[in-house]
C-alpha cells in the first residue's frame, strides 16, 4: 500500500499517461492517496499496461515505477478485504482448488441424481429431453436461489467497498448511466486509442475483444437460460453462440496471460476464473453439439456443475471483479461530472 502510494505520488508529478485510461484522471483529482483511494484506483485499472511501456521511470530507473504490478497487487488485496463472511478468504486464496472440488462434487451428485431417476441407460441409450432431465420447477428453484444468494452477498460486499472508496458520496443516476456505458463500451480497454499493451508492448485491441467476448457471451447465455427448457432451435443456437464467445474469449485471455511479461503480473486469482469460464464455454459447445445423442446429458450436467460452482464461489473469487470495477467506474463518472472530490 505504501509502495502504491509512493509510485502514484511520482506519477502525479508527471501525468504523461493522462488519456490512456480513467486511472490517470482519477489520480489527478487527488493530492495524496488514502487507503480507499488506492483501492479505488486499483479497481479502475484494467491492467492494459500502456502506462508501463510509456513510462521512462520503470526499472532499471531508480524510481522503480511499475504501476500495473503495484495496482494489481492492491486489487488482489481489495478482493480479500471486503470478503463476507471473512472465513471465505481461505476459499478465495485457493480458488483453483475450490472450483475443482466444488465442480466435481456437484457433477457427481447430479450424475447420481440422473442415475437414480432414470437409470444408467439415460447416459447412453434413452435420450432424455431437458424437461425430463430437470423439470422446470426444479431448475427454476435451483437457478433463482443461486442468483439471490449471489446478489445478496455481492450487495453486502459492494456496499462495504463503496463505503471504503467513496468518502461518503452518494451515487446519482447520471453517473450510473455513464458507468454502464463505460462497461459495455469497454472504455478502459482502449488505451485512449492506443489499444492495450497486453500481453506485449505492441498496442492491440485483441484484449478488448477477448474480454468483451466473454462478457457478452456470458450475458447472452444468462438471458437465454431464462428460456429453459430450450424449446426450439433458435434458442439453442443463441445459447451456442454465447458459449462459443465465452470459450474463444477466455481461451484468448488465458493465452495472453501466459505470454504476458511476468514482471508485470501480480499473483492473481484471475487465471483460475478464466480457466473456469473456458471450461464452461467448452462444455456448452459440446453438449449442444451432442444434443441429438444421449451423451449430451453428461456434458450438460458438467456445464451446469461448472456454472453452479462459479456462482457458489462468485462472492469469493475473481467473479467479484465486476462489482468493484463497476462501483469504481460509477465513482469515477461521479467525480468527473462534479469535477471535484
Amino acid at each position, binding site marked *: 500500500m505504501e509502495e502504491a502510494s509512493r509510485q502514484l505520488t511520482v506519477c502525479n*508529478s*508527471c501525468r504523461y499517461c493522462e488519456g490512456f485510461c480513467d486511472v490517470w484522471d482519477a489520480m489527478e483529482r487527488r493530492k495524496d492517496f488514502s487507503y480507499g483511494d488506492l483501492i479505488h484506483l486499483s479497481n479502475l485499472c484494467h491492467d492494459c499496461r500502456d502506462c508501463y*511501456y510509456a513510462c*521512462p521511470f520503470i526499472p532499471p530507473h531508480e524510481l522503480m515505477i511499475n504501476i500495473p504490478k503495484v495496482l494489481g497487487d492492491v486489487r488482489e488485496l481489495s478482493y480479500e478485504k471486503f470478503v463476507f463472511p471473512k472465513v471465505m478468504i481461505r476459499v478465495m486464496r485457493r480458488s483453483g482448488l475450490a472450483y475443482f472440488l466444488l465442480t466435481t462434487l456437484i457433477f457427481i451428485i447430479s450424475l447420481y441424481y440422473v442415475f437414480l431417476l432414470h437409470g444408467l441407460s439415460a447416459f447412453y441409450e434413452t435420450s432424455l429431453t431437458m424437461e425430463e432431465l430437470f423439470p422446470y420447477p426444479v431448475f427454476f428453484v435451483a437457478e433463482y436461489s443461486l442468483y439471490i444468494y449471489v446478489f445478496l452477498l455481492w450487495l453486502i460486499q459492494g456496499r462495504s467497498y463503496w463505503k471504503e472508496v467513496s468518502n461518503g458520496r452518494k451515487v446519482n443516476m447520471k453517473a450510473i448511466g455513464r458507468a454502464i456505458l463505460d462497461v459495455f463500451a469497454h472504455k478502459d480497454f482502449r*488505451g485512449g*486509442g492506443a489499444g492495450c499493451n497486453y500481453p506485449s508492448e505492441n498496442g492491440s485491441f485483441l484484449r478488448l475483444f477477448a474480454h468483451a467476448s466473454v462478457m457478452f457471451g456470458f450475458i447472452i447465455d444468462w438471458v437465454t437460460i431464462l428460456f429453459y427448457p430450450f424449446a426450439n432451435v433458435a434458442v439453442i443456437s443463441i445459447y451456442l453462440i454465447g458459449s462459443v464467445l465465452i470459450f474463444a474469449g477466455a481461451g484468448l485471455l488465458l493465452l495472453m496471460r501466459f505470454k504476458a511479461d511476468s514482471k508485470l503480473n501480480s499473483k492473481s486469482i484471475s487465471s483460475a476464473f478464466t480457466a473456469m469460464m473456458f471450461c464452461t464455454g467448452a462444455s456448452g459447445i459440446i453438449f449442444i453439439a451432442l444434443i441429438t445423442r444421449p451423451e449430451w446429458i453428461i456434458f450438460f450436467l458438467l456445464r451446469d456443475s461448472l456454472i453452479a460452482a462459479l456462482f457458489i464461489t462468485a462472492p469469493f473469487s475473481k467473479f467479484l471483479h465486476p462489482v468493484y470495477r463497476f462501483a469504481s467506474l460509477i465513482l469515477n463518472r461521479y467525480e*468527473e461530472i462534479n469535477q471535484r472530490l
Partner: protein
Amino acid sequence: MYIWLESEATIKLSDYDVVVVGGGNAALTTAITCAENGARTLLLESAPALERGGNTKYTRDIRYAHHEDKFTSGEYPKKELLEDLKSVSPGGIDEKIASLVIDKSEEIPSWMSTHGVIFKRAIRGTLSLSRTNAFFLGGGKALVNTYYRCAEKLGVNILYGAEVERFLFRGNRCESISFSREGKMTEVRSQYVVVASGGFEANLKMLKEIWGSAADNFIIRGTKYNTGIPFHRLVENGAKVTGDPKGGHMVAVDARGPKFDGGIITRIDAVPIGIVLNKTGRRFYDEGEDLWPKRYAIWGHLISEQPDQLAYVIIDSKMRDDFLPAAYPAFEASDIRELLLQLELPVDEAINTINQFNKGVVVGRFDRTKLDDCHTIGIEPPKSHWARRIDKPPYYAFPLRPGLTFTYMGLKVDEEGRVQREDGEFENIFAAGEVMSGNVLSSGYLAGFGLTIGTVFGIIAGKNATSVK
C-alpha cells in the same frame, strides 16, 4: 540483414547506406525517412533497449505553426512562433534556420500521425490543452516506442548499447564508424552518417570544464547517455561548433531527485507561490516576476549562482494546493523555526528574511493564473505578484538544485543539415536534433520546440542522406 565477420580486434559489419548515431526523436525520424527512401539503415543507440529514446522520453508535446486544428485550441501563425522564439532567446537566433524549421513545422502533425503517433484531442471534457503545442498520448516514451516499431517494420537495423567511439575519415568524407558494444569494438562502413546523438548534459567532465566546480552540484534531468562523445569526436576532426557552451535548459528541481534521468518528475512548481531562500537564509530573486511558464526556465541558472547551488522554496499551508504536486514529500513543521532547523538554514537570518517579506506584503486578490496584485513594497528583491504572507502553519519546504535538461552547444550545420567544418564542410555527415539545436537558438527555452527542431531536421537529414530532395 547484416553479417558479422569476426576478426581479432574488431568486428566488421557489412556496409550500410546510412548510419544514424543516436536513438531519440531526431535519430528515429532520420532512420525512418532513410528506410522509406530505400536505404539500408543502421541505428546506433548508446543506451540499452530498456532506456532507449534519449531525452525524447521526457517530452510530451510538440510546438508547430498551424491553422485551427484538432490537436490545439486555436491558430498559431508562423510569425507568432518566430516572435516567441526570439523573445525567449536573449542570445539571439539564426533567423534563416529558425524560419526553415518554422516553415516545415506545419507538416509535423501529419507526418507523426502517419507514423503511428496518437495525439490527444485539444478539448477533453472541460480541459483544454494548449494553443501552441500538440500533446501526444503517453508522452515521449510512447512516442519513441511507436517510432522504434515503425523503424523495425521498415527494416532499419537497430543496435542498443552501441557507443560510437571514432569516425574514420578520408579527406572530408567519413568512411566508417567504430563503436563499442558489449565490450567489443565494431567498425561499420557507410555512405552517409547522420549524427543525432543529443547534447552533452550527462558528461560531467565537460560540464565541469564549462561551469567550474558548480557543475558538481547540478542534477541532470536528461538522459545519462547524452555524453556528447560523437559531438566531441567530430569537433576533434575539425567540425565547427555553434552555440554558447553554457547555453541549455536548466530549471529548479528537487535536490533529492536522482542525479540523472529525473525527467519531468523532479520539477518544483512552488517557486512563484512561496519564497525562495539560499543557504545564507536570504532571498535572491523576484519569485513572482512573471507567469511561471515564462519564468521557470531561468531558475536553474539563478540557483546555480547561489552558494553550493542550493536553495529552498518555503510555503505555508494556505499555499499547499496552488501548484502541481511534487514527487517527493515536502519538509513539514508546525513551527517555522523548526522547519528552518530541518533545512539546516541559519535560523535567525532566515526568520528575519521571512519577517521582512511578511511586512512588505501588500494584501491583494490572489490569482495564480494571471499577474495579480499581490505584491511587496520596500523589500529587495521584491516579489511582484502572488505575494502572500508566510504565516499559516504548518509550513512546508522543498530543497532546490539546478536541473540541467539539455545543452545547446553543438555542431554547426547548413540548411541541408550538413555538418560544417572550420574550413568548408563534411561531404557525407549530417546532424539533427539536440546536437544541432544551437543553430536555431543558443539560450532560452521554448517548450516543445526541441522536438520540432529534431523532427524537421531529422526529415531533412534523412532526405539528404538518401539524396532525395
